[in-house]
């Protein structure tokens, strides 16, 4: 059984190799190969899962060493896999959702002439992510981590002919590098502290290390997680990453990439438990991000960017939960899985809408689409209900637990975190309802005739709409079927996991669990959640359901305008990082030109000048040469005598 683990990674990796090296002859069937290998990986995962269920809960972990990677003296790095319940959860999510997204992409990318390459990158993405969650040491995890970064760069910038896509890819890559530096420093610190970076010894010995070291490692791991999971302050890339094809967004947001940070923190639990300061930093980042993302999500008119804000916010929930320690690990992962279902469904739904609307992304130009695309409407609607935490659906089960756990943290901290989580739930309900209403309800705002109440629409927008009037239609089966499957998951997964605490029992042997000491009863938290949920929905209804929606966005309040600009994240980065960086490089270039080049060129010139002058001594006359020899001998003798005299 252990030997199968390698094939989980190998299958999509083979796909990537085939598709990227295979050349044009695979153009016609490349997408099938890619999808098939992703599915193969899922099947292998399912087999391993079934086999794992058959074993006792404490010996479910499998280990498999493939080969010694870097054996140098005391430094040992192996390519070795570890498949325990935590990894298994991720494997099923990644391969399952990943495969669905592959299937969806067959239809979505049908008219793209670089479809084979797209599937190659998708496979590479899966392989890297699987390597990340299956590695049994931090160094191999780092390989997967970087592989994810590479694949995301390639996919976000897939439409490289668009300058915005190329820029977004670069932005994602560069922001991620900042996080990657954190991970590499954390790994080095681990090696100096523990002498190894294999999970088992590091995590077992964590309580022997000094708190200072653990805090340093923890903060560096958090930095890494912030980069990959788009948490404040490294969140800025996520919104721009929407420039990639929509299936890529679904893959990044649901199954891969952004979940890596949650995995890293959950996996490194013992380190954080030994470093309360680092843990406090984690929950702060989580709480801030969940509000940050939610507020941004409220202001965006671009459907994908609104969903991106939502992802940021939901991952914030998970990071928050992971930062709570054993109270929260299980719920962080559970929310991650349920989120994987409904966020993938939402993105695929959004893609389906865009597909129907000539790639229009502005929700103010949608409206009333529910009759035109019923399947998309239903599946998107179920995803919507799941994400806001409608009772009984997936999101309800997992989000409710996180809010509960936040309160259970205890003390003032617990109240603040719980309050933030509750507030986040309200805002989530608000912005998701807004998305739903703008897209599927109300009157249609697309087409050439402007709405009667909006005669002063921008001429530019008009001309853009004029040349290609959309004819909304339902998407092909290859796209709708994955959406249906994901919708089913969005509805039932949460309930299934919570039945007899199934998920808790499953994951507890790996992550541990404690109930904490909640000042509020579970029922009270649930009731509170329901109340804020209702308020959020009602507010959105009042604003977007009852009145017609203007085709162009009103100016809005200061906060709205700031939120439209992603709460000034890019402005902040520009002023705080880019400008100083530019001044620094300009200064260095100036120094290089004036000082370094000056010295170099000056030296060269003086050597050349000296050479020209010395050359003249070589005048061709033997007498001059003889004089030189004579003088030289005199100096030689004088110097020798002088040395004796001194």
């Amino acid at each position: 059984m252990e030997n199968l683990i390698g094939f989980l990674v190998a299958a999509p990796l083979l796909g990537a190799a085939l598709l990227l090296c295979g050349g044009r002859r695979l153009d016609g069937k490349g997408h099938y190969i890619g999808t098939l290998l992703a599915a193969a990986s899922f099947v292998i995962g399912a087999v391993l899962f079934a086999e794992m269920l058959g074993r006792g809960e404490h010996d479910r972990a499998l280990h498999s060493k493939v080969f010694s990677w870097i054996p140098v003296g005391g430094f040992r790095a192996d390519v070795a896999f570890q498949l325990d319940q935590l990894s298994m959860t991720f494997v099923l999510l990644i391969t399952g959702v990943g495969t669905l997204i592959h299937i969806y992409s067959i239809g979505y990318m049908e008219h793209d002439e670089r479809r084979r390459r797209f599937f190659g990158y998708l496979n590479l993405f899966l392989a890297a992510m699987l390597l990340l969650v299956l590695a049994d040491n931090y160094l191999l995890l780092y390989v997967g981590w970087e592989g994810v970064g590479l694949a995301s760069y390639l996919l976000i910038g897939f439409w490289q002919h668009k300058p915005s896509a190329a820029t977004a890819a670069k932005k994602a890559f560069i922001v991620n590098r900042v996080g990657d530096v954190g991970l590499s420093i954390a790994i080095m610190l681990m090696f100096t502290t523990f002498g190894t970076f294999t999970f088992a010894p590091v995590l077992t010995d964590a309580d022997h290390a000094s708190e200072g070291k653990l805090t340093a490692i923890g903060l560096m791991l958090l930095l890494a997680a912030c980069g990959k999971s788009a948490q404040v302050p490294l969140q800025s890339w996520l919104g721009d990453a929407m420039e990639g094809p929509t299936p890529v967004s679904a893959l990044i947001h649901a199954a891969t990439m952004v979940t890596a940070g949650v995995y890293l923190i959950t996996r490194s639990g013992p380190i954080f438990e030994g470093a309360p300061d680092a843990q406090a930093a984690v929950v702060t980042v989580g709480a801030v991000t969940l509000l940050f993302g939610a507020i941004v999500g409220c202001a965006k008119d671009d459907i994908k960017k609104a969903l991106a804000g939502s992802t940021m916010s939901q991952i914030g929930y998970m990071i928050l939960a992971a930062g709570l320690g054993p109270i929260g690990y299980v719920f962080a992962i559970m929310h991650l899985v349920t989120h994987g279902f409904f966020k993938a469904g939402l993105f695929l739904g959004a893609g389906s809408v865009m597909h129907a609307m000539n790639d229009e992304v502005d929700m103010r130009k949608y409206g009333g689409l529910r009759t035109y695309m019923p399947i998309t409407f239903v599946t998107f609607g179920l995803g919507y209900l799941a994400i806001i935490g409608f009772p009984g659906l997936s999101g309800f089960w997992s989000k409710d637990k996180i809010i509960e756990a936040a309160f259970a943290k205890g003390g003032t901290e617990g109240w603040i975190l719980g309050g933030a989580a509750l507030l986040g739930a309200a805002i989530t309900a608000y912005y998701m309802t807004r998305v739903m209403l703008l897209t599927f309800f109300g009157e249609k705002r697309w087409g050439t005739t402007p709405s009667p109440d909006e005669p002063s629409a921008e001429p530019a927008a008009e001309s853009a709409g004029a040349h290609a009037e959309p004819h909304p239609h339902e998407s092909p089966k290859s796209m709708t079927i994955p959406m249906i499957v994901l919708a089913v998951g969005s509805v039932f997964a949460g309930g299934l996991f919570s039945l007899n605490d199934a998920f808790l029992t499953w994951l507890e042997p790996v992550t541990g669990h404690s109930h904490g000491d909640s000042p509020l009863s579970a029922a009270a938290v649930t009731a509170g959640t329901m109340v804020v949920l209702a308020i959020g929905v009602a507010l959105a209804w009042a604003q977007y359901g009852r009145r017609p929606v203007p085709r162009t966005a009103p100016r809005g309040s200061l906060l709205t305008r700031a939120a439209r600009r992603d709460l000034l994240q890019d402005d902040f980065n520009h002023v705080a990082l880019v400008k100083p960086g530019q001044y620094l490089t300009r200064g260095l270039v100036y120094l290089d030109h004036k000082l370094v080049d000056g010295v170099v060129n000056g030296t060269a010139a003086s050597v050349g000048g000296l050479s020209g002058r010395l050359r003249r001594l070589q005048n061709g006359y033997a007498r001059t040469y003889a004089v030189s020899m004579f003088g030289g001998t005199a100096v030689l003798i004088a110097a020798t005598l002088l040395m004796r005299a001194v």
Partner: protein
Amino acid sequence: MTHAATVHSLWTTAAAAPDKIPSPDIEYGQLSPTLIVLGAAIVGVLIEAFLPRRQRYAAQLFVSVVALAAAFAAVIGLAAGDYGTSKARVAAMGAIAVDGPALFLQGTILLVALVAVFTFAERRLDPVAHGNRVDSFAAQAAAVPGGDAEKAAVKAGFTTTEVFPLVLFAVGGMLVFPSANDLLTLFVALEVFSLPLYVLCALARRHRMLSQEAAVKYFLLGAFSSAFLLFGIALLYGYAGTVTYAGIADVVDGQVRNVTPALAGTMGNDALLLIGGAMVLMGLLFKIGAVPFHMWTPDVYQGAPTPVTGFMAAATKVAAFGALLRLLYVVLPGLRWDWRPVMWGVAIVTMLGGAIVAVTQTDVKRLLAYSSIAHAGFILAGVIATTPEGISSVLFYLAAYSFVTLGAFAVVTLVRDAGGEATHLSKWAGLGRRSPLVAAVFAVFLLAFAGIPLTSGFAGKFAVFKAAADGGAGALVVIGVISSAIAAFFYIRVIVLMFFSEPRTDGPSVAVPSPLTSSAIAIGVAVTLVLGVAPQYFLDLASQAGVFVR
């Protein structure tokens, strides 16, 4: 008592007679490399005297190659017989040392000479004159350049096959030079290898005036330096009462108390020692080409026939450094606090001077001449280390450098235009496009000169600099590295010129050589790369050979 025993008894009794001159005790076996070469040189002279003109070339080439190969085999035999290590000794009544450095350097000189003879014998590069294949040497050396006699000689197809015995005589002298164990032998060896070289320098077929001018300059300046050397020897004799290395060293070390009455006024006078030592050093530094005794080098390198230049640049340097090492390590070690600072100065000005002046050179042969000066400086840095590592690093450097030099000059003979070899650098522009192979080979040699890793130049430079740094000459190493950087400029400049410039329309053509020159160049490249990629075996060999007998 048998008859034989009686004879023996008589013999020994007679030999013990006090007033009889003792017959010298010569170890012919241990001297065989030198004897073979000198014997073959005499055979060569006889060939010139008795064989018809048409047959001389083949016969001379055969004799030379066989003699050099046999001599090399003899060196290997001696080394295998532990004469380089445990059985190292002084032979020929104290005149010749047979030890590790001597055998290593003799082996190197013999191999270099063997390869050089290939380039001497090359007859396909110059266009056929009147139906005769010709080599790089004048048809008739005695004929006035441009005169009727010369034209007649060319028409008759004369060639100067005397170059082969001349080379063999020079090699004979060079073999003795680094193994000479007294000052007189040293002087005789110096003259034995210098005089044939003066003649060889004058023998160029093209640009004969330049060639003869070079020879005269070389001869005059060589005679001038010999005078200094000889005077230094006289002073040293006055100081020590002996010319043997060991004897002088004993006096320097203060182990000799009984003063020869005739020399009572001078013996042990340190002024004589210092002045004499400096003058002998000067004579050797002249041969090495160290600044400020280097000024003959560019003119002679440029004027001499290129095969001779290659031979001279490689073999003379090996022989002269061998003699310098023996002088400093055997005769004057007790004086090292006096000569080290002086040699520091010489090494510095040699490294910097050679590298700096080379920057503005426009002729490839002069460029290589200045490069050889800079390299002399680098080797001096190893000499100054005064450690066993210093000796072995210098030995290795010499072996590595001599093959690079030989190969580089062999390539120079290939690039030709109507006037013979096209040595002006501007004509080499774009050579890499026209003759990629030749340009690439030359680039390998240039990279080795510059000391780029994976070439023998790097291994050698690293060895001498390491030895110098370990020997307490860190500052010298810094200056050496700076000089290397300057030197890299002009080596790389030639590579850039060859590969990244547009070829000239009137550019030179590359002649197709016979297997002789081809194999010489191939051996050069092979040694350069082997010593660069896997130097350890040869470094070990050099360090085994790094002990002088006294």
